[in-house]
């Protein structure tokens, strides 16, 4: 067995802390005690792999995938594209990227969402794709609306798309959210504000990308994602025992 190389330890300062009282639900769902830190093991260095057989033809097209192509969703048509890299700027190829989002009016197709903005009969709100050889992915979707949520008395989520990325090892697993350039609600959002480092929050804001938009069809936004890297083990004793 070859050593896959230990994962680079997470820089926890780049992430939100578990406890942030302005995001009220985190108050009772955050551990009080410190995390137990140690170097990664094969349990974190291996991870699930998903093949192209998993992905249907419309899986990355949220405008059409709910109706299987029969009718398009209502809203601002956008391409969301980007690249998945690791901390050493190496592309992460053939990795699964999943997204979910509200419709153009800010309503989620979920049994628990009771916001009175209507569902769009032609919009589901989930999609998935694999990155290509060079780590690129793309989704066609509609821009989600802002929506209110029960936190402080008048909190509204900015327009956002949830992202789930696997990487190649279980220890790289990441869920985050993509925001949209220029949205004034980002600065007022307690969930966005759980990120202490302003430059880290800025990196969740996708810029308008006119070069990738298609005239008379859709606008485009670019969202790159960085996962944990693996350290080289050149000078270490490799456990070759298997």
């Amino acid at each position, binding site marked *: 067995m070859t050593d896959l190389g230990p994962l680079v330890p*997470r*820089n*926890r300062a*780049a*992430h939100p802390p*578990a406890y942030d009282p302005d*995001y009220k*639900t*985190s108050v*009772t*769902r955050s*551990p009080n*005690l410190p*995390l*137990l*830190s*140690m170097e*990664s*093991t*094969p*349990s*974190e260095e*291996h991870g*699930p*792999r998903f093949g192209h057989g998993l992905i249907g033809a419309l899986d990355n097209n949220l405008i059409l*995938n*709910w109706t299987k192509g029969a009718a398009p969703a209502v809203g601002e048509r956008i391409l969301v594209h980007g690249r998945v*890299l*690791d*901390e*050493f700027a190496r592309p992460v190829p053939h990795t699964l990227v*999943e997204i*979910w989002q509200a419709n153009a009016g800010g309503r*989620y*197709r*979920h*049994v*628990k969402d009771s916001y009175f903005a209507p569902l769009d009969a032609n919009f589901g*709100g*989930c999609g*998935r794709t694999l990155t290509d050889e060079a780590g690129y992915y793309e989704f066609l979707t509609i821009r989600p609306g802002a929506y209110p949520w029960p936190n402080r008395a008048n909190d509204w989520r900015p327009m956002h798309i*949830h992202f*789930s990325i696997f990487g190649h090892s*279980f220890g790289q*697993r*990441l*869920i985050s*959210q993509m925001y949209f350039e220029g949205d004034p609600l980002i600065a007022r959002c307690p*969930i*966005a504000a759980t*990120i202490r480092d302003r430059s*880290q929050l800025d*990196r*969740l804001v996708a810029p308008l990308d006119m070069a990738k938009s298609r005239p008379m069809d859709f606008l485009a936004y670019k969202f790159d994602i*960085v996962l*944990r*890297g693996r350290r080289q083990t050149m000078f270490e004793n490799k*456990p070759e*025992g*298997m």
Partner: protein
Amino acid sequence: MVQPLDTLTETASQTAGPYVHIGCIPSFAGLGGIYPEDLGLSPVSDGAKGEAITITGQVIDGTGWALRDAMIESWQPDAAGLFPGQAGADPAVSGFARFAADGDSGFWTLKTVKPGAVPARGDAMQAPHVSLWITARGINIGLQTRIYFEDEDNTADPLLKRIEQRPRVDTLIAKRTGPGEYRFDIVLQGTGETVFLDI
């Protein structure tokens, strides 16, 4: 100015939110049919070698209330301690599962085979365990932990040995409740708080 490091910083995590199931377990959210089946329905298929086991539990918050909106992912090797892709690994073990706490009771269930021991870095062996990743509304970055088994010898496990307060080791040990059945509760905060990992 010193030389620049040509490394990037990991993208910041954000909560998965209450509607995580739309993207990750669409049938659970009411989007059945968008994919042929949800991802990670089972970590094993028919004919997987080893002891079939069922692990059940709840994810409990700091007030003692079970989360009804948690999503958990599990990752493990086969009964011989081999991960998918390793030479000789059991082809009937994908090792990956995804499951939700029940919307009414908060209970989750994982049906799998008991994993074999896996080497650690260096010469040590790790006791059999299932790795977990827990996300939910109110959890800003996914919580990592592990399930060990009370009917295995856990004394030499390098991770468990690092836990200073010995009573806390118990929070990572699933209790046997019957033949092939275990109970494993995840306590996010307070008395009996589960050991979470930075690994």
